[in-house]
């Protein structure tokens, strides 16, 4: 499964490669991969470029089938892929273009603490988070919501939670899409999905999801950092999670329901995992409504996780979260499909933008960037691996010109989970992390081994490429101090 890709990759810029649409007869547009000479070698080690070509077959696709430098192999669509389709021209929506973890995303809290405030009590703080924040397989939430309340969260996202005493009012304006997609329909979500998710609002989950206490190691752009409220040595909290079992089930349900839909609409696909339906069809509308409900649930989940983190910090420092300055910096999705307005060849179009392992990166002046950030662009949050760093970027005009307002989403895996476990045999990953100043707690026996830094590409390389390409620019690098994982 690690076959090297041998198809055409034409270098068309310092950080861009093209798979021409002549590569396969089914390609309607070119494939474009953002990468430099080093990363492209890693990218071509698996079949992800073939998936970029396959996605170019989708009806109604506009511009190009795009892939970010953290691209790696996924189901049907690669991870790190962006595809925009035009519903007015038969454009489709595909559950595989969003992924199983609908609205997996990242939320960043600021604090007014510095590294020096936190380091002396770091193990106590991380142990406290590990106890207070439900992690691991199937862990239920500390705060229970009944099925009717979960429906409200699916419809209204964090807004409903704020109205019921969780989190802060100001949090809402600092979420992508204000934490709520219109058109969410809990009735389009199966009973099974409701059941899988009902006690998981406010749970981290397992796999690559985590909560990290970090400090600002380096500022790259003082002006933007000031607007974002970031300064050197400041402590931040990064939360990476999604829609949990509810979202997985929605994706699985609709992959199954759509199995025979492409044939119904005369759509021929090179990979059945690309199953899709025209956005305007009954089947497409139904999936979109369920996906939006799961996306709103995911925003609710990260909102509750932030609430739990604020409580733990308050307890450990003997101050209120307000006194600790635990403001939300921003919350972004990186597995989602949304209707957005983009200008293509001088024409404004309403497009269905799929981002699967890609992050929205709207530039300065865009109407959907919160007021307080509008002059400098939308914050983009890029989680790295446990041993290196995460980044705060800012959207650039180039993202609107080239990638439907999108940029990368993380470091990107380069080692299988089992290879990572093998590579860690005889090593103590927890100790290795401690040696570089990171205190880690994980629930599973193999969680730390699977997610060790070597399993990922170097996030520094990935963000350098998107900056060179003009999609987003570096604002700050955040270095981990402590992490909890499922």
């Amino acid at each position: 499964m690690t076959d090297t890709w041998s198809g055409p990759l034409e270098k068309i810029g310092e950080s861009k490669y093209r798979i021409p649409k002549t590569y396969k007869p089914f390609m309607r547009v070119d494939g474009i991969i953002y990468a430099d000479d080093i990363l492209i070698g890693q990218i071509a080690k698996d079949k992800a470029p073939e998936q970029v070509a396959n996605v170019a077959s989708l009806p109604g696709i506009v511009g190009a089938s795009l892939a970010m430098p953290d691209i790696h192999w996924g189901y049907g669509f690669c991870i790190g892929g962006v595809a925009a389709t035009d519903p007015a021209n038969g454009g489709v929506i595909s559950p595989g273009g969003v992924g199983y973890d609908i609205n997996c995303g990242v939320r960043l809290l600021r604090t007014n603490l510095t590294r020096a405030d936190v380091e002396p009590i770091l193990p106590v703080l991380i142990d406290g988070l590990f106890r207070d924040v439900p992690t691991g397989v199937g862990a239920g939430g500390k705060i229970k919501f009944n099925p009717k309340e979960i429906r409200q969260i699916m419809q209204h996202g964090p807004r409903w939670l704020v109205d019921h005493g969780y989190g802060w009012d100001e949090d809402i304006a600092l979420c992508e899409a204000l934490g709520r997609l219109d058109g969410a329909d809990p009735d389009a979500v199966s009973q099974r999905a409701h059941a899988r998710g009902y006690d998981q609002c406010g749970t981290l989950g397992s796999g690559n999801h985590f909560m990290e206490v970090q400090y600002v190691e380096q500022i790259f752009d003082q002006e933007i950092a000031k607007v974002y409220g970031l300064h050197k040595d400041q402590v931040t909290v990064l939360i990476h999670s999604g829609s949990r079992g509810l979202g997985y089930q929605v994706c699985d349900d609709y992959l199954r329901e759509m199995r025979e839909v492409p044939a119904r609409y005369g759509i021929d696909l090179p990979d059945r995992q690309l199953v899709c339906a025209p956005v305007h069809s009954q089947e497409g509308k139904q999936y979109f409504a369920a996906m939006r409900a799961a996306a709103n649930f995911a925003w609710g989940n990260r909102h509750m996780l932030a609430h739990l983190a604020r409580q733990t910090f308050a307890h450990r420092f003997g101050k209120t979260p307000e006194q600790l300055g635990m403001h939300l910096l921003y919350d972004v999705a990186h597995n989602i499909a949304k209707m957005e307005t983009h200008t293509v060849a001088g024409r404004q179009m309403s497009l269905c933008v799929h981002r699967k392992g890609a992050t929205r990166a709207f530039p300065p002046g865009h109407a959907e960037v919160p007021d307080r950030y509008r002059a400098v662009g939308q914050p983009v949050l890029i989680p790295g691996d446990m041993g290196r760093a995460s980044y705060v970027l800012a959207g650039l005009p180039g993202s609107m010109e080239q990638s439907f307002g999108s940029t990368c989403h993380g470091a990107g895996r380069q080692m299988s989970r089992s290879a990572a476990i093998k590579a860690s045999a005889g090593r103590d990953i927890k100790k290795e992390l401690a040696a570089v100043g990171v205190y880690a707690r994980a629930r599973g026996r193999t969680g730390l081994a699977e997610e060790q830094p070597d399993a990922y590409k170097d996030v520094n390389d990935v963000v350098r490429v998107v900056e060179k390409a003009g999609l987003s620019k570096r604002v700050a690098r955040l270095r981990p101090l402590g992490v909890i994982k499922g």
Partner: protein
Amino acid sequence: MQPNVTGYTFIEHTADLGLRATATTLPDLFIQAARGMYALLGQLEPGTEPVEKILQLQAPDTESLLHDWLSELLWEVDGNGRLFDALEFEWLDEQHLTARCSGTVYDTARSERSIEIKAVTYHDLRIEKHDGIYQVTVIFDI
């Protein structure tokens, strides 16, 4: 029958995990794939509350039927805590199955779930038969 043709092994994959199951009959292939998936989930210990379920499924092809079979069993673990250690087919053809599944609600206190399977995927899901041996590879999104 050749020795050791029935069973499963785990395989690695860039981001996820999978298994390869082999058997001399199609029903046994479905059972081996199910046992492999249970093993991937971790160390699940049977409980004391007995459970039984008749599963009836229909799908457009055999691969989809296997996908649905494993997805149903996964749902029973995640949604209802049910672990079926006895799986018996009353009927299985290329598009339909009826299975009698017996087991217990697993003992969460004594069990250790090591991974969360988000879903059974369709990636490279192809049942092949060579020299009388059925084989399938199943990749799980974790």
